């Protein structure tokens, strides 16, 4: 208990430096989730509604990619962005931009695979009715995305959880540079290795509190909306 209290006190002492780390964490993870959602939801809808050769293989692949190790993603993005790599000229390595790219890659399969499952369940219920009304695939996909919006919140939250919690990818492509690319998870790893366990613990609590707050808010919105719309 004493360690926890000490940790929280140390975190509060950090103030400006701490809030910079928290803000960067949120900026990176939320941007990554936004990008992954914009790509992942349409991909999930496509896989749920359209039947095409290779669809099942793609679903298996996507499900497997949910378990992609962050360090491996970090390494691959590192190779792409490093000065000798194909995207080297962009000069993104060790910037927040690189961290956003890495986390987007990490989160995309989660959002696509989970939304595919939710949308396919909805499609089973809606298919005959929508086809009877003359909805083509594109219209049906958009209808599903809108009608299953409450279930999709869970898919997006799972993605956000993954992004906020991972350390391997942002560490490799960001480099944990103080004031530039240091986020909560890399700061925790650093403080732990330096032996400053109370500070690491305090940062950990702030991270958990943030994730909890996001999930609680989303759940609240979801439940209110579900009561309202059935």
């Amino acid at each position: 208990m004493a360690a926890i209290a000490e940790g929280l006190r140390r975190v509060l002492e950090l103030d400006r430096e701490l809030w910079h780390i928290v803000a960067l964490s949120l900026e990176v993870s939320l941007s990554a989730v936004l990008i992954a959602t914009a790509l992942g939801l349409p991909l999930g809808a496509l896989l749920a509604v359209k039947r095409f050769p290779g669809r099942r293989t793609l679903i298996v692949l996507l499900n497997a990619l949910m378990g992609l190790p962050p360090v491996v993603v970090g390494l691959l993005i590192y190779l792409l962005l490093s000065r000798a790599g194909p995207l080297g000229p962009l000069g993104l390595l060790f910037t927040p931009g690189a961290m956003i790219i890495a986390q987007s890659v990490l989160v995309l399969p989660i959002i696509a695979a989970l939304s595919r499952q939710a949308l396919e369940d909805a499609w089973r219920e809606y298919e005959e009715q929508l086809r009877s009304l003359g909805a083509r695939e594109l219209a049906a996909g958009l209808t599903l995305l809108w009608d299953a919006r409450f279930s999709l919140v869970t898919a997006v939250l799972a993605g956000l959880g993954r992004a906020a919690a991972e350390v391997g990818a942002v560490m490799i492509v960001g480099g944990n540079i103080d004031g530039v690319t240091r986020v909560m998870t890399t700061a925790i790893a650093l403080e732990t290795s330096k032996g400053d366990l109370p500070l690491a613990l305090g940062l950990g609590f702030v991270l958990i509190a943030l994730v909890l707050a996001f999930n609680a808010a989303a759940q609240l919105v979801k439940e209110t909306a579900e009561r309202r719309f059935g």
Partner: protein
Amino acid sequence: MAASILPLALEEVGYAPRGQTLIDGVSLEIGAGPSTIILGANGAGKSVLMRLMHGLLAPSTGRVRWNEPDAASLRRRQAMVFQRPVMLRRSALANVIYALKLANIPAGERESQALAALDEVGLRHLAHRPARVLSGGEQQRLALARAWALHPEVLFLDEPTANLDPAAAREIETVIKAFDAAGTKIVMATHNLGQARRVGDEVIYLQAGRVMERATIESFFARPATAEAAAFVKGELPWV
């Protein structure tokens, strides 16, 4: 308006997914006019037959032919109401507007047409209620309004009252009869003999995926031509 999409002709239609025969060599012609009841026990193939007619399923053998070659036009001029209505997560009114939008009705006309359809089924006062919180009977009436808004020439109904209490079922029947009176061809599957009598003009009796008998309501109930139909009318289960 162009010529009617009717008659609908089924030519030796069979449906056998994964080798299991559900519909077996059905030949039928369904014309405008009398309300047609597809009667049969559970598992007789009523729902499958309706889906083949409506185009939701493709026959394994044989052909389903309408008097209209254009698929999009055909789709717009027929509608189906299912046993369990599927309502979108939006208001009752928006559910009807959705169907009108898919049918390419100009945006400016959708709302007034949708409200008129809700009026027709007595749901106008619930227009802005979320569709999914309506009662089962109200949802089914909303499904009827959604189908009716497009003024289909043919309306398929697959056991529309199977999940409803008798009072709600009667309300649905009243709406169906009003559509019939307005000139829409009714094709309804049911296993409810009383409902068949109240709503139908003619009966197609189905058993094990085959048409056993087709007759007017009066003669079907008074003098069933086959032993199977006679047993069904008497309320006996054919396999007992």
